[in-house]
């Protein structure tokens, strides 16, 4: 435990994004994000898995030149994990900052990925940070930390995700500027796949076309469609010489469903575009 907490992950310097991440805007999301940052408004990114939410945040962090604290939320993540806690160190107890407190102290962007997954008490922690108050209350320290102007809270949220349980409360949702992510348009997505992976334009186009057809099956058996990320993976595998069949199966069929009929259907769609 100690080892993990001491690792580089929590060191400030490494939170900066040094190289420009590849990002092609789908619409006005970049300017919207920038405006929110300037006006100190929290942002909520909505959209299906693999549609580029995380990539946008990275890109914006780079663009705005702020460190990025990414927390991937899970169902055991409590408020303490965000704010920090006391640890025993030698003869002393020492307070260790959590990522949220770190960002509040130093400024920067906190990105809570899939916030709905976290325990409910996390929302209590972030609420004061999302409105005009902009402070973080740490009870154990008995202190209130005011966020600097360059602090920004970003959460991501996938509305079609898994279960109704994982629904974000109205009161939480309404505190954020919401940026909606859909699938990129065909040309844009082709461009993304092409540039990210280096596969030929034509292959990229076929991948995207097939993906769009498969996405028609959402709610008809598929929980989620093929994400751009999966397409990029597919492209990467193809580029690195993995046989077409394996590359496509492992990225565009298997991750999507276990239903054998559905798998076969998707396979047939892919077969329309690729020799497999």
């Amino acid at each position, binding site marked *: 435990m100690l080892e993990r907490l001491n690792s580089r992950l929590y060191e400030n310097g490494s939170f900066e994004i040094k190289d420009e991440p590849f990002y092609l805007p789908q619409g006005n999301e970049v300017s919207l994000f920038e405006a929110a940052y300037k006006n100190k408004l929290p942002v909520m990114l909505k959209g299906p898995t693999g549609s580029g939410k995380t990539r946008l945040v990275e890109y914006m962090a780079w663009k705005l030149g702020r460190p990025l604290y990414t927390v991937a939320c899970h169902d055991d993540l409590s408020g303490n994990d965000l704010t920090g806690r006391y640890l025993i160190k030698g003869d002393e107890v020492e307070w260790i900052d959590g990522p949220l407190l770190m960002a509040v102290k130093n400024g920067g962007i906190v990105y809570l990925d899939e916030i709905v997954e976290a325990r409910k008490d996390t929302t209590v922690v972030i609420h004061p940070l999302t409105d005009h108050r902009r402070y973080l209350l740490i009870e154990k320290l008995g202190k209130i930390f005011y966020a600097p102007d360059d602090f920004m809270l970003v959460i991501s949220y996938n509305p079609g995700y898994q279960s109704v349980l994982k629904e974000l409360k109205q009161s939480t949702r309404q505190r954020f500027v919401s940026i909606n992510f859909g699938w990129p348009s065909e040309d844009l997505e082709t461009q993304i796949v092409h540039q990210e992976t280096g596969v030929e334009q034509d292959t990229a186009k076929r991948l995207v076309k097939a993906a769009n057809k498969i996405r*028609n099956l959402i709610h008809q058996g598929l929980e989620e469609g093929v994400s751009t990320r999966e397409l990029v993976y597919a492209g990467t595998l193809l580029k690195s010489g993995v046989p077409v069949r394996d590359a496509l199966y492992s990225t565009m069929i298997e991750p999507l469903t276990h239903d054998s009929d559905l798998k076969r*259907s998707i396979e047939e769609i892919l077969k329309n*575009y690729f020799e497999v």
Partner: protein
Amino acid sequence: MVWNSTKKALGKRKIRKLLEVHYDGEVPEELVGELYPLLDKVGYDGLEQVAGLSSQIARYSAGTAVRLLEKSPELIEQVLTHGDKELVMQVYSLCRQVARDTIFVAARLLDESPELVERLLKYGDKELVKKVYGLSSRVVEYNLRTGVRLLGMSPELVDRVGYDGLERVAGLSSRIGKEHSDVAVRLIEMSPELIDRVGYEGLDRVASLSSQIGKEHSDVAVRLIEMSPELIDRVGYEGLERVAGLSIQIARYNWRTGVSLLGMSSEFIDRVGYDRLEEVAAFCSQIAREDSFVAARMLDMSPELVDRVGNDCLERIADLCRQVNRDDGFIAAKLLGGSPKLIARLLEYGDNEFVTSVYGLCCQVAEDYNWRTAVRLLTESPELSKRLHKYGGNELVKAVYAICTQVAECSARTAVSLIEASPELIGRVGYDGFEKVAARAAELAKLEVGRATSFVRGESSEYAAFIDTIIQGLELKKIKPVLANYLNALLGYRIEIAEAQGASTDGERIYLPERIQEFSEEDRNFILYKVLATHEEAHLEYGSFDFELMRVQDVVSRISAKYGGERKQMNGTSDVGGFYELFPEPTLARDLTTVLEDYRINSRLQTEYPVLGEHIVEMNVHVVSKRLAIAELANDKQRAVELIGQRLIAGTSEEQVPENLEQAVDRALSISHTLSSPNADVHETARVAAELYFLIEDLFQGPYKPVPPFSASLDQSQVNQNIGNFGRTARKISEKLESKESRTEQDNEQMQTVQQSTSSSQYAASEEAVKKLLRALFKEKGVRPKEVESRIDALESSKVEDYLSDLETLIRAEDELQSERDTYLYHEWGSDIGDYRPNWSRIRERAIDGGSNNFYLDTIQKYAGLIKCIRREFQMLRPEGLLRLKRQFDGDDIDLDAAVQYFIDKRLRLSPSERNYVRTEKRLRDMAVAFLVDVSGSTGGATIACEKEALILMSEALRELGDSFAIYGFSGHGRDNVTFYKIKDFDDLYDERVQSRISILTNEQSTRIAPAIRHTTVKLRSREEKIKLIILLSDGKPLDTDYHGDYAIADTGMALREAQRYGIKSFCITVDREAAEYLPQMYANSRWVVIDDVLKLPDKITRIYRLFTT
């Protein structure tokens, strides 16, 4: 003079004296006056007779006597004109003779006598008349009726056979008449005809025969006499005797049957000869020994049956009827009555032998299994034969029955299932496959009948595996789910797949052949399926059905110019149809358009799907290779179309073609080339079609005969009817928008610029945009263009824009379907289509309120002891709530005890523990349970009461335990009306209100379980608890309007499976003892228990719950 008057006075006195005997009072003077003249004619003795008769009659009816008396002068006068006094005497004496028995007959006889005499006189003198009267009077001595009838018939008889004949008849009949007057009378009546035909000798013999038979049964004898002329004509006297013998034999068992045998015998012999009659009679008499009812009915039916089927068959029919009749005479009678019709229908599919085998099978089934099944099988058999006939004519039908008869020897039950499944089976696996299935079934039947039967019905897994091994080609059924998803993905919305002869579409369904066996490899068969399906889908996707005549005005005017003005006004036909009609040879136009549109679609698909494109070509080459040789076609026109089709579709045609054709085809192909561009639409196809039409028309003569179609021609009217026309609707919308625009321009010219910039709508500019919106609308929300179109037609142009933006928001809106408050739509699994029916059932949530909680109080009291026990048990199950886990490696807080120990250890230089943190964990029973209670009509009586008691006990227990729970009831009527009672929601407290709601629950309508399960699933899914559970309390089979049997069971099973998919467990408690049969199927995806006695339910439910949840 004086003498005369003296004599008169004397005579009158005498008459008065004579009459005084008969009259109580004074004899009327007038009567005496009237009778007096008779004195001269008939004398005193004559008058005495008259008076005697009158007195005889007067005993019974004075009126009649007086009337007769008054009439007698006239009567006697009449008789005297023909005869003499003696005759009068005879008449009167005969009448008196008769009057001893019956005065009415006597009176009639007297009345009729002048006429009779007159008639007799035609054939002889008065001596004859006297003789006849004498004869009759002698016969009357033997038998009155016979005598009277003889007299009545006498003129006729005398005419035909003379007095001698009459005498002989009289002799015969009087002999018979002594015992059987009916027979004798009938004999007399028939005698002229008989004598005519067979002479006296024959008459004699008939008479003696009938008198003999009459001894046993007079009715039979009467009938025999009636039938005898006809029968003797046909089979001679000998035959008659034999028939009579048969009849009397049968009559011994049942006289009616005997009579009816005689009645129909002549017709019967006419049809099939005497021998058959004898056979049938022998056969019927045999049946009659066991079952006279069936025998009689059988005989009645036999004329109709006998020339259709042989004895064997009759025997089987009788056999079957006998078996049925043991239980149910009504059905047996119906069966027999219906048999000629049934046999007639069966004979359409085979000969006598076939019919016999059908009946034979049914007999066997009746004998070995049960007669009801046999009767069902019999009534089904014409329909079955008809269905079988489609697959291979009469031969096949016969063979199938033969096989099933063989199987029936092993197990009748299996045979029934086999034959009932046979059409479908043969459709799937062909006759050879059927034979194999039958052989396998017979083998299994030897081991275990039940197994064989379920095998044949296709219910066992063994079956599926077996079928797979014998199947030929690829079945649509097998790949339907895959293709359905595939098409859904390509098209963007759900489209049904249905079976049909060839591939086509009507907008709602894509029709594909039931089976494809073009290739020996399954893969290639599948590819053909895929190519066909994709082609049909592409027609929909790429707008083949958006054709509008008014968009090809240029072509239309060219065609009109060429072939003369306005052609027929088409009404009701589609635009495409109208387009064909523009040409002198619409079929040529149709075939060209179809081929060209296919070409356009294929080209489009090839660009869209590079690999599929290759498959398309490959398959088309195969299809083309199977077409007729060019040389075999009728004329050059036809050949040209065929060649163009082959080249366009497959890209090749290997045959050597004459020069002129080759050139024409080349030109046609180069014209068609524009269609391979992805921008070409269906209107372009029409233009090209017109070009080609002109080309062919110019080059070749003769009428065009349609070539066998390459693919189904477009059924635009059907598609437009089903979903509408995207193109037309889009055009209408943009026209309306434009018209609005231009009007505003006119109205406010000064504001023109402002208008242009502000209100110029985003749609007006491009029809394409509207079309896109419409397609999106259809894809996402299932709103059809035809619905939009009808709205648009009704709207004013100024409102169109608002409507469009409404539509647009509709696409974006998230929950359009649940707009109606408290109603929810759910899919339903259609086992018949192998797919979900979207939004097929509607849940209406309803809260129940009010009412007293008496039932609750009663129950609490009734089960007071049990409740105490239950509470204690469940309290023990209850966990402590939040749990602080000490000495953890990781946690929210420091564990002080551990920390102190840590520092102590360190000071002591011991290795300190690292487990110094405290973590809080929830240790709740993290469980949400929904009780779903069937309150349908079938739960009447004890069931509903027990369900309610069980709910109350359960609630008490759960209150102790702390599991969150909900109680829902469901019932309903029809799929639009599934009522869902919220008795207790998860968040409701278990309080008096809930208790009173449980108390007032009553049983209601039908049971449509699946939507209720789906709705409960949704409710449970929004719960945070880890374990989620549905407990279903029901009384058996789901049943609703159009919702029953396997369909309902499959849907319910599917709903439970869906719940399982969301991690919701289900437990079904059923109180239907006889239900066990279908339960495993329905509850395949959940646990279940059957409680055989509903009264035990309250007692058991808490135990079940405890076992299931701990």
